[in-house]
């Protein structure tokens, strides 16, 4: 009975710590992955309204920019900004392939948009290029989910023609599946991307919805944003320090938040893990202690029958090792199967994709080994010393103690 309790103690300790670390690790990996889904080191800029008076003009003026302005920013800030693209956007386009239809949002953009926003083509396809832009080609790059909706698959559809608002477009590529945990206009997997020139020839917009730029590696986003103001402020006559003149979303502040958050989160996990281990360890030690006490008589009998002290100790150490190994293995097995089978099960029965929210738990091998060995050593020490004490008694005393 006690033996079973010891095994259960080690078993449960292993399960909880492995699950804890695995889910934590999965969550962190997913967050890091996802925060890159929108793009690395990018800011998104929308038109804004001035909040400060400037050069005799009152506050409250609307500031907008044209595609030409974006081109000018690109030209004049090459030392701070590595990529930039305007984005014309409109939703509720009707896409059609054979009898399949889908409604999607379409962005008209420049070729460099793809790489900075982590929109990468699957094998066999490509993103938009400069010639598409120059020649106002009717080509479209599809998000993977919208492609799935139209074609029932994402591979092998490059070269097909779909109709967008009844105008035919050539599919040039499909986006690689990616995790994206933030967005400003829906997930990229549900969008289509066409050249900005093509977009304008159909929709004739004067102003892009927004533009996106990427700071050069090693450049502070703050400095890159100042560069944008340096170009646009004189042109539209607003105070370059007026942060409301343009509405800017600096995504690096979010990634900084996540990386700080995970530092705290990891510490938190380790602390919880330690407490769990201590609790488990105390339980196991307690049980082992009682086991040996209960078996003091047995130890006495065995010594009376001619057991060497080392044989008695070996017996307890062997038992300790076996129990630990058994408990650890069972615990690991349960944790592993929970991790492997529960998320798909939830997905099937509840139509609830756990992975989208907490990531895919990832077994932390090092953590597992550490857990099992700490609990195991505790069990062995807790068993070893009382056993040693009992085997050092005169056999008569050991027999009579209980």
């Amino acid at each position, binding site marked *: 009975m006690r033996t079973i309790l010891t095994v259960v103690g080690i078993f449960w300790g292993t399960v909880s710590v492995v699950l804890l670390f695995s889910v934590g690790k999965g969550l962190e990996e997913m967050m890091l992955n996802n925060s890159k889904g929108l793009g690395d080191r990018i800011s998104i800029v929308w038109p804004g309204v001035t909040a400060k008076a400037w050069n005799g003009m009152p506050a409250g003026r609307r500031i907008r920019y044209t595609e030409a302005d974006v081109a000018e920013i690109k030209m004049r800030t090459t030392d701070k900004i590595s990529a930039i693209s305007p984005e014309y956007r409109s939703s509720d386009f009707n896409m059609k392939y054979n009898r399949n239809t889908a409604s999607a949002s379409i962005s008209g953009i420049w070729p460099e948009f793809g790489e900075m926003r982590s929109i990468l083509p699957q094998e066999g396809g490509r993103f938009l290029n400069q010639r598409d832009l120059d020649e106002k080609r009717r080509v479209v790059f599809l998000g993977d989910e919208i492609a799935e909706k139209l074609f029932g698959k994402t591979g092998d559809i490059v070269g097909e023609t779909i109709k967008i608002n009844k105008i035919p477009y050539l599919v040039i590529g499909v986006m690689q599946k990616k995790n994206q945990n933030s967005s400003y206009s829906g997930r990229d997997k549900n969008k289509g991307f066409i050249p900005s020139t093509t977009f304008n020839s159909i929709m004739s917009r004067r102003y892009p919805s927004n533009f996106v730029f990427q700071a050069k590696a090693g450049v502070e986003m703050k400095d890159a944003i100042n560069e944008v103001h340096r170009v646009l402020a004189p042109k539209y006559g607003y105070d370059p320090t007026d942060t409301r003149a343009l509405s800017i979303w600096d995504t690096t502040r979010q990634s900084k938040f996540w990386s700080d958050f995970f530092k705290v989160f990891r510490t938190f996990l380790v602390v919880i893990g330690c407490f769990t281990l201590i609790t488990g360890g105390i339980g196991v030690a307690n049980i082992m202690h009682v086991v040996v006490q209960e078996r003091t*008589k*047995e130890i006495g*009998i*065995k*010594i*009376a*029958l*001619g*057991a*060497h*002290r080392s*044989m008695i100790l070996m017996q307890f150490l062997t038992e300790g090792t076996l129990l630990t190994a058994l408990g650890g293995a069972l615990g690991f097995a349960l944790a592993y199967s929970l991790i492997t089978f529960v998320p798909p099960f939830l997905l099937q029965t509840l139509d609830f994709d756990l992975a989208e929210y907490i990531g895919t738990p990832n077994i932390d091998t090092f953590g597992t080994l550490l857990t099992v060995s700490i609990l195991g050593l505790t069990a062995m020490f807790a068993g070893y010393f009382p056993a040693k004490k009992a085997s050092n008694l*005169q*056999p*008569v*005393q050991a*027999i009579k103690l209980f």
Partner: protein
Amino acid sequence: MIRMTNVSKVYNTGSIKFEALREVNIEIKEREFCAVVGPSGSGKSTLMNIIGCLDDCTTGEYFLRGTSVANMTQNQLADVRNQTIGFVFQSFNLLPYATAEENVEVPLLFAGKSRKLRLERCRHLLERVGLADKMKNRPTEMSGGEMQRVAIARSLANDPPLILADEPTGNLDTRTGGAIVDLFNELHDEGRTIIMITHDPNIAAKLPRQIYMQDGALVDKLRIAS
């Protein structure tokens, strides 16, 4: 076989000293069959434990087959308990979770005998004490007499020349006890030295030699009677 000179045993229980044995001098030759008789607390068991190397003496010297026990290492003592002495307890002291066969096997295990030899020996010994059909039974499934037979079989495992029995019939009824004593007689006839503590004057009287104890010392029979 056994020689003790001025052996004393003092138990210190907190501040209280209790002298369990006082200056005991005794010699027991090979092939003797002795009964140790005396009231409770007279030191019989203490004497037996010291003879069986289950306890050490406070002062005095104890020679077992010419060797001073005080000079032996722990491992040597373990080997003596394993090879030279067979101990039968009043309360049997069998391992409760093990079968009769496994209980008899324990001393053989410590002696490092091969599995085949061990099984053969167990079967032989349990047959000898009349328990061939109970080899796979656990102590809880056996009567007192049967448990004591298992204990005797176990004491014989490594064929020791000296058998020590601490009131082996104390927990048994007269008839079962008689059968156990018969078994000891057989063992004596085989040439073993046997020392047996007993409360039963009838059993003691039938044995070749009686050792009387009172208040931790050896006395002659007259003092006990009075």
